[in-house]
């Protein structure tokens, strides 16, 4: 869609986008935002804005003089302003964080784990981690080496059957990770860098066309890998005991406490039917190679194994 048409949609009925797990309708009168969205959401079909949307959000100028003096923008959802305004030169990060906030606070029909998710041959690797552990960088690297990208931020575990639902959105890369991915995947599409955010410099990586096209296709989990970027370290993959993996995943969830027994059962099944690992790495090529080998080996055993190593009592 041309920028002018995007701009018209944003200023009018809204720009409808389908991320897989959720559909969002965005509105904005902020100049320049349409160009950034066109770059990062290039492969997303534009949805008619008059349907049902899980999220209706807007990025707008605040009332008063802050449109002109040290201009700011504010994120609104359903008419509410959940955050303080941001400087207008961080419009896209505010929009992306705002959408993440909406997803984490609303999607309680799934267990939302703080994790990247990538898939090959129908089976996914979940990459949960705390901020700063290299999760987004590793997820982005895998997505640029032939893996399908399901999510950078949300491992959305469906409660009924334990499959992972895609939440295909731009990946937020921070600080050194931006140049790391530029070097690792020179053809990857990155949006502009925003140097003044509270997380440092942020840039967004656009999801590739096949991943966007497959945003409605779930994937069965095969492994849980907790990555940790360790400068100078040789790549090292080691098994993690399941009880510990359960505890770490629960602590890394957005809504584990909200769902009660449903999340306990879903997480227990996930941990029982997958293998869990720690991955320490500094070199992305090495980490990608180790995960590719792990995936191949686990997949080879998956057919001959029902995957249940423990059972719910």
């Amino acid at each position: 869609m041309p920028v002018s048409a995007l701009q018209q949609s944003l200023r009018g009925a809204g720009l409808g986008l389908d991320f897989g797990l959720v559909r969002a309708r965005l509105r904005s009168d902020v100049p320049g935002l349409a160009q950034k969205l066109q770059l990062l959401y290039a492969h997303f079909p534009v949805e008619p804005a008059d349907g049902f949307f899980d999220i209706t959000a807007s990025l707008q100028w605040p009332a008063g003089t802050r449109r002109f003096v040290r201009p700011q923008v504010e994120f609104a959802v359903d008419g509410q302003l959940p955050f303080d305004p941001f400087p207008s030169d961080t419009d896209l990060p505010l929009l992306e964080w705002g959408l993440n906030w909406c997803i984490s606070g609303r999607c309680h029909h799934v267990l939302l784990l703080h994790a990247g998710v990538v898939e090959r041959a129908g089976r996914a690797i979940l990459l949960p981690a705390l901020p700063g552990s290299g999760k987004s960088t590793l997820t982005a690297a895998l997505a640029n080496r032939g893996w399908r990208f399901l999510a950078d931020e949300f491992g959305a575990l469906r409660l009924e059957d334990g499959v992972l639902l895609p939440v295909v959105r731009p990946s937020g890369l921070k600080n050194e990770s931006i140049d790391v991915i530029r070097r690792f995947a020179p053809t990857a599409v990155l949006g502009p860098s925003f140097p003044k955010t509270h997380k440092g410099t942020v840039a967004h990586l656009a999801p590739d066309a096949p991943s966007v096209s497959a945003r409605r296709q779930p994937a069965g989990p095969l492994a849980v890998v907790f990555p940790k970027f360790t400068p100078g370290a040789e790549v090292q993959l080691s098994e993690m005991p399941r009880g510990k993996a359960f505890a770490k995943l629960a602590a890394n969830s957005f809504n584990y406490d909200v769902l009660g027994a449903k999340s306990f059962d879903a997480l227990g099944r996930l941990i029982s039917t997958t293998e869990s690992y720690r991955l320490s790495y500094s070199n992305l090529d090495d980490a990608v190679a180790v995960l590719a080998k792990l995936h191949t080996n686990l997949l080879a055993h998956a057919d001959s194994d029902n995957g249940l190593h423990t059972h719910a009592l």
Partner: protein
Amino acid sequence: MTSPATGHRGFPLLCVLAPEDCRRFAFEDGTVVFNPASWQSHLLNPSATRIFNALFSGPCSRDDLARLFDEHDAAEIAGTVDEMESLGLVGRIEPSA
């Protein structure tokens, strides 16, 4: 006083609270248990798992537990049971008046 459940002295008896609603997954490094009253999940180490499983099988006294796990330090068992009580996983059956 004689315990109706165990047939010997040792009130109060200890028991798993709401065992019918108790959910748990057993793993190689312990057991995760969901407390339906608090909605909290707990990772029990192998030693605590044995105590919990024993209480899940039926009420018993601290003396019974000590006999079951004679290789354990009694103080350790008592500490584990106290912690389980404080978490609401384990409760007491007091003798009726």
